[in-house]
């Protein structure tokens, strides 16, 4: 019964989201698109920061790798951008694997500075037109408009549905992941690494896995971003972007999917709402960030303990 209700709620929620653009102008729909992109980026970072407890302030690097993969291949070989989604994920993931391997054992703030460093190195490499393919500070322009079954996506309204679909898929997959052996393993190592290792969990493996998975997802979002903007440049992948993603995760509620969604809504949405305040808008935004953190110190919607059905006790499968 409860499960049934939940399903109805989910369907209603998706339905409500789907008709939202009917009531909004292009600007607000585009704000929603931005929120959506950051929500997914937040969710991907949430795996690393929220679940595995790894202090990553350089997530924009993976986002950038995904975006540039899409942009370069699209402009050079005219492969439709959306086809490149798996490849964007792959390159971002492989990149994460290569850099994370030697540094993953670093603790807390040391890992933090290394991720910042990686983010900066990537940005500087892009600016300096590394390998002659990134277009330097100009970035890459002329990425072709994506199309789905011949329908070319142009307006914010079109992208809204693409991003919505992506968001929903991401939420479901990550929800399952969270409630699995994998998701728990990340939490164990966040709580106490020695105890996790001592309970038979390959902590290095899981740290890497969370990094690679989070990075791949960010890479996919990079692809969507490139498709939406049709032009990308290093300025879209600065340290500030990583900071925003990080704030989304923590402010929303580390480890909590609804929290991250709300975090994205606020972090991306509030500066837009505060546009009325003109030059004071970032000041107000900063104050709001502090205030929200103080009033909800665990984040706005903190993660809740997983629930397990303990009902069928007698099932004799488990042996001791």
């Amino acid at each position, binding site marked *: 019964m409860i499960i049934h209700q939940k399903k109805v709620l989910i369907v209603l929620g998706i339905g409500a989201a789907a008709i939202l653009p009917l009531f909004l102008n292009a600007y607000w729909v585009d704000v929603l698109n931005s929120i959506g992109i950051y929500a997914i980026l937040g969710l991907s970072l949430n795996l690393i920061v929220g679940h595995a407890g790894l202090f990553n302030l350089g997530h924009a690097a993976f986002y950038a790798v995904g975006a540039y993969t899409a942009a370069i291949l699209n402009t050079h070989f005219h492969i439709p951008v959306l086809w490149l989604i798996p490849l964007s994920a792959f390159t971002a993931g492989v990149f994460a694997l290569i850099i994370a391997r030697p*540094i993953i054992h670093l603790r807390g703030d040391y890992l933090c500075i290394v991720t910042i460093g990686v983010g900066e190195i990537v940005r500087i490499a892009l600016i300096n037109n590394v390998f002659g393919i990134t277009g330097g500070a100009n970035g890459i322009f002329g990425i072709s408009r994506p199309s789905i079954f011949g329908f070319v996506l142009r307006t914010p309204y079109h992208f809204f549905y693409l991003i919505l679909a992506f968001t929903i898929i991401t939420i479901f997959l990550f929800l399952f992941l969270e409630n699995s052996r994998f998701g728990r393993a990340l939490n164990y190592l966040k709580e106490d690494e020695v105890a996790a290792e001592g309970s038979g969990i390959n902590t290095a493996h899981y740290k890497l896995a969370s990094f690679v998975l989070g990075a791949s997802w960010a890479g996919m979002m990079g692809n969507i971003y490139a498709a939406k903007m049709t032009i990308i440049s290093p300025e879209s992948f600065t340290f500030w972007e990583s900071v925003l993603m990080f704030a989304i995760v923590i*402010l929303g509620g580390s480890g909590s999917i609804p929290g991250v969604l709300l975090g994205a809504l606020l972090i991306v949405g509030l500066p837009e709402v505060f546009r009325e305040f003109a030059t004071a808008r970032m000041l107000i935004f900063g104050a709001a960030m502090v205030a929200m953190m103080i009033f909800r110190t665990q984040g706005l919607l903190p993660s809740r303990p997983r629930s397990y059905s303990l009902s069928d006790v007698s099932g004799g499968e488990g042996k001791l």
Partner: protein
Amino acid sequence: MEQFFQQLTNGLAVGSIYALIALGYTMVYGVLKLINFAHSDLFTIGAYLGLTLLTSLSLTDRLGPLWGVILLAAMVMGFVALAGALLDRVAYRPLRESPRLSAVVSALGASIFLQNTVMLIYGARFQVYPTDILPKTVLHLFGLDVPLVRILVLFVSLVMMFGLYFFIQKTRIGTAIRAAAIDQGAARLMGIDVNRVILLVFMLGPALGGAAGLMVGLYYGQINFTMGWGYGLKAFTAAILGGIGNIPGAMLGGVLLGVIEAMGAAYLSFAWKDAIAFLVLILILIVRPTGLLGERVAEKV
């Protein structure tokens, strides 16, 4: 070879400023395990406050450059210390018991807030310090041109570092600060007023940041409301490089980072300067995971 030594002095000058800011980071981090991202904006505030006080009170005209600057520094440090204490009270203290990263986000918010406050008060344009305060003497040492001011900057950083180190390591209050850093409850049981200790830390750290801001203003002459971020990031890097929480480490990290940057820029590429610096940092951390002087946390299980 001459180029090498000249670049070395260039690097040392920048490095000592990184070091001075890094000292404040490390100080706060050591006790609260908080990366005070707003530290960089306290630094900016120090620079602006210095300018305001300097021009409105014309201290250097009345007292001469030496005493004028010293008094100015004392005032700036005092005010920024107050700002630091206020910041702690408003933005960090309510988060003392909550997850560490929550405080990081609060710090980021505070940083945005402070940066924009400075912009609204002073405007977005560059502000300029009077140029005639610091001595213009250039020393010729071993065939190198070394402005006297640079030696002063390095000297001030070193003095601050030694002072701080002595205070933390050798005095009763210093030991109390370190104890509070490890276990606040146990520190209370020793009769230590933990809130006062934290307040002290939150005045010392920002005071150092404010001093650095003033120094940058006097030395480089040009200040801007966004200047904190760049310096802040470098100083944080320096603190980590040396081993965060470690005072000589912050000094070493700062100076080293300055030198790495100068050398990377001189012998490899300017455009890649920061990337080179970060790469070296990463390589060092791979070999020494807790920084150059950071304690190996020998965790006993």
